């Protein structure tokens, strides 16, 4: 190595080292979340993107002794960015058995406070068993069974293991499993999203999202991707659990320049720079477990098929129901077990009720559907007036006790009136029994009276397309448009244009009436026309005044006055005026036409 090369390397480090301070984060993890009394486990606080951090020396948890054991630093370089990882390791020594929560605590990094997550830790009693592999829980069954993975001892870059909490399980019992895939922390790359796992004779629940943590195995720091799920065996006998696999694309440190191997071994190098990319498949080792059949002795007749540990509670709503109104009996079964294979609880003392198969809903409180609560809702309609709901009975097999258990719920007070249409309870009406279970169909608790229970629509045609609906809406539309038309006409009539139009019509009518008028009413109509045309009201004097005030030529005004005077004469002359001769009528009509023409201009 020449001095020039060394200078280049130091220059590169001088540029890269400050990049250590990019995104700071704190993660915390336990080497195992289960242990026995006296068995130490490691609690690791991993700090990224910082050169130092202030962490507490001890943590106070009653029943656990937790103290800081040491600190290690590691540099990583990915995509030409260098980051440092500090790992603070605490030793956790359980003092007593029980369920513990290691509380969250503060980690100070350059003046900023980061808070870790709280963790649950389970400690069981009994003698300590020899540790098969550092980090393995003591009360689980490590796979492969036997010695720890040789790969781990030899500091291999990756290996996998399957953790089962039991070696002997019952048919239908749900057993949590954990798949752990270990990668040496110096290896970069991409890890598949989900492992591949499954086989004959057992069912597998969906996998949880991967949990990533750091773990020291035999002195080597590993990044562990952990997937949780649960399996349930479907038949008795020896169950072969095949290998679980996870595909990954890894970057291994490659050949480094001669003489610099020790130096570069401290840095996982970016792709293409002294690295070797490989597609690898991590595999757990196959294993066998023993599946026990559910005992026949003591099996309740109404055994629901549930295997696990459960509690039950019930409620009813509404508390008061009028005739024919249903009440809803809600039964919640909570705990741990095979919720998927669980049948509904049985109603007891339900003779006075008509009930239907319940709806059910499962709410899981963990990622794999092992723990949670299943709610069954029974719709009930009283056949006779009722003051109490039916009772509830639920049976299950408890694998930890190795026997069947029965939970019962006493009837709940309710005030339900009998439906008027409900038929009386027929003697011998069959009630739901577990004997009906083999049928894939749920059988109602009591036979429903279909004629009485008929509900919903009695037509395949939506109301939209039914003739009566269309006719009714068409009628409404016609009425609406008619009303719109009437209102529009009224509005127009009251407008200036409307009024003008009406007046013109009156004038036209008045003029045409004048032509056809008899001799006794000719002048009456002629005067009316002048009234309208001049827009004058009142008597002849008012009309005369209107004529005088108009801008008509004087001789034309005189002609109009003459028509008004003739009206007076024909109206008030003693013995009546002689009928106007045809020439006079023509002359009057000519005057009025001229009046019209003058006003039109």
């Amino acid at each position, binding site marked *: 190595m020449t001095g020039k090369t060394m200078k280049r390397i130091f220059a590169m480090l001088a540029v890269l080292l400050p990049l250590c301070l990019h995104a700071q984060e704190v993660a915390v993890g336990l080497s195992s979340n289960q242990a026995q009394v006296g068995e130490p486990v490691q609690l690791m606080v991993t700090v990224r993107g910082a050169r130092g951090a202030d962490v507490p020396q001890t943590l106070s948890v009653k029943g656990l002794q937790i103290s800081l054991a040491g600190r290690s630093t590691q540099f990583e370089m990915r995509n030409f960015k260098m980051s440092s990882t500090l790992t603070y390791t605490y030793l956790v020594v359980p003092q007593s058995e029980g369920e513990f929560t290691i509380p969250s605590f503060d980690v100070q990094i350059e003046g900023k406070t980061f808070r870790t997550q709280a963790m649950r830790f389970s400690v069981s009693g009994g003698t300590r068993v020899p540790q098969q592999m550092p980090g393995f829980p003591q009360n689980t069954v490590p796979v492969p069974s036997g010695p720890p993975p040789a790969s781990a001892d030899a500091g291999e870059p990756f290996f996998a293991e399957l953790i089962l909490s039991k070696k002997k399980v019952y048919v239908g019992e749900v057993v949590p499993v954990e798949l752990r895939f270990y990668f040496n922390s110096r290896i970069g790359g991409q890890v598949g999203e989900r492992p591949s796992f499954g086989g004959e004779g057992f069912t597998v629940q969906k996998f949880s999202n991967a949990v990533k943590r750091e773990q020291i195995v035999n002195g080597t720091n590993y990044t562990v991707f952990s997937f949780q799920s649960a399996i349930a065996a479907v038949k008795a006998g020896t169950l072969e659990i095949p290998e679980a696999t996870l595909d990954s694309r890894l970057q291994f440190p490659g050949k480094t320049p001669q003489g610099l191997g020790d130096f570069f071994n401290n840095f996982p190098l970016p792709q293409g720079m002294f690295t070797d990319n490989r597609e690898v498949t991590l595999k757990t080792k196959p294993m066998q477990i023993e599946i026990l059949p559910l005992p026949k002795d003591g099996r309740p007749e109404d055994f629901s098929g549930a295997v696990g540990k459960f509690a039950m509670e019930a409620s009813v709503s509404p508390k008061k129901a009028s005739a024919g109104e249903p009440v809803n009996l809600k039964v919640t079964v909570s705990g741990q077990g095979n919720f998927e294979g669980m049948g509904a609880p049985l109603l007891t003392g339900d003779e006075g009720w008509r009930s239907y198969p319940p*709806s059910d809903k499962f709410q899981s409180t963990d990622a794999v559907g092992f723990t949670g609560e299943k709610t069954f*809702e029974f719709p009930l309609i009283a056949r006779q007036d009722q003051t109490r709901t039916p009772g509830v009975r639920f049976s299950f097999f408890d694998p930890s006790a190795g026997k069947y258990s029965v939970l019962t719920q006493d009837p709940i007070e309710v005030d339900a009136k009998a439906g008027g249409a409900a038929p009386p309870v027929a003697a011998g009406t069959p009630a739901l029994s577990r004997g009906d279970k083999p049928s894939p169909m749920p059988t109602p608790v009591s036979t429903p009276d279909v004629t009485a229970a008929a509900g919903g629509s009695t037509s*395949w*045609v*939506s109301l939209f397309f039914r003739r009566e609906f269309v006719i009714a*809406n068409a009628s409404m539309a016609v009425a609406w448009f008619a009303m719109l038309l009437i209102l529009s006409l009224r*509005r127009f009539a009251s407008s200036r244009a409307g009024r003008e139009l009406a007046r013109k019509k009156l004038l036209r009518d008045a003029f045409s009436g004048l032509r056809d008028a008899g001799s006794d009413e000719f002048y009456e109509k002629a005067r009316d026309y002048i009234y309208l045309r001049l827009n004058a009201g009142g008597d002849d004097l008012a009309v005369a005044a209107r004529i005088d005030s108009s801008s008509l030529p004087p001789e034309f005004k005189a002609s109009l006055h003459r028509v008004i005077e003739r009206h007076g004469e024909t109206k008030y002359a003693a013995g009546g005026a002689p009928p106007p001769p045809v020439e006079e009528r023509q002359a009057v009509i000519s005057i009025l036409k001229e009046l019209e023409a003058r006003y039109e201009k």
Partner: protein
Amino acid sequence: MKSSLIVVLLLLLGFSARADMLSDASARFQDGEYEQSAKLYEQSLEKSPPSAAVFFELGRALNKTGQEARAALNFRRALILDPRFAPARSALQEANVALGIPPVKQGWQAQVVERIPMDSLTLAGTVFFWGGAFVGLAAFLPTAFRKRRLVAGLLLLLLGISLVSVVWLCDPRVTLANTALVLTNGGTSVRSSPADQSEKTASLPQGSIVNLLSQRGRWFYGQLPGGAKGWFLTEGIVPLIPPA
């Protein structure tokens, strides 16, 4: 008068005959004569308007005879008529489990129809719509509060349109109008084109639901549960809503 009496009497006789048939069907079911019971329910449905309860009972009887797919069809029909009929929903789930049909996550439409009767919602929407239309029209009257009437009318109109739109989007009698169920034993094959020799792209197990898009001869073109489309034979494909 005489003819009216005769009509009433005939109607009463019809109802009585139907009730007898249903009672008989129910009794036969209790006695374990499931096939006879199913036949009587089918006869009752042929002679009377459709009823969710009768379709449910028919489904139960068919299920007892091992005809899960036909049972599922009738449970679905019961749910189309009465989406709030919880026993039919449970029974359909069980039948689907027996058929190996994976459960489908219910959309918001299913949740709406389970809670609100569609016909009532349609009527309410229509009343609001026309109420809004007429109140809005009253704003044309030359009286006080014209603006308020217009605003109230528009709000009612919008409310009515919204309710009717919800019905349009949710009512299974509208949304499932082109949906069918695969009754064929062993399911049916989906092909890339309407020919026996064309490439098989998928298989539809018995009890599957498909959305029919078009028909060419003895082939349906439809959308499969996963969203893919393809051609399949019309034999054994039964519309959920029976043809009129």
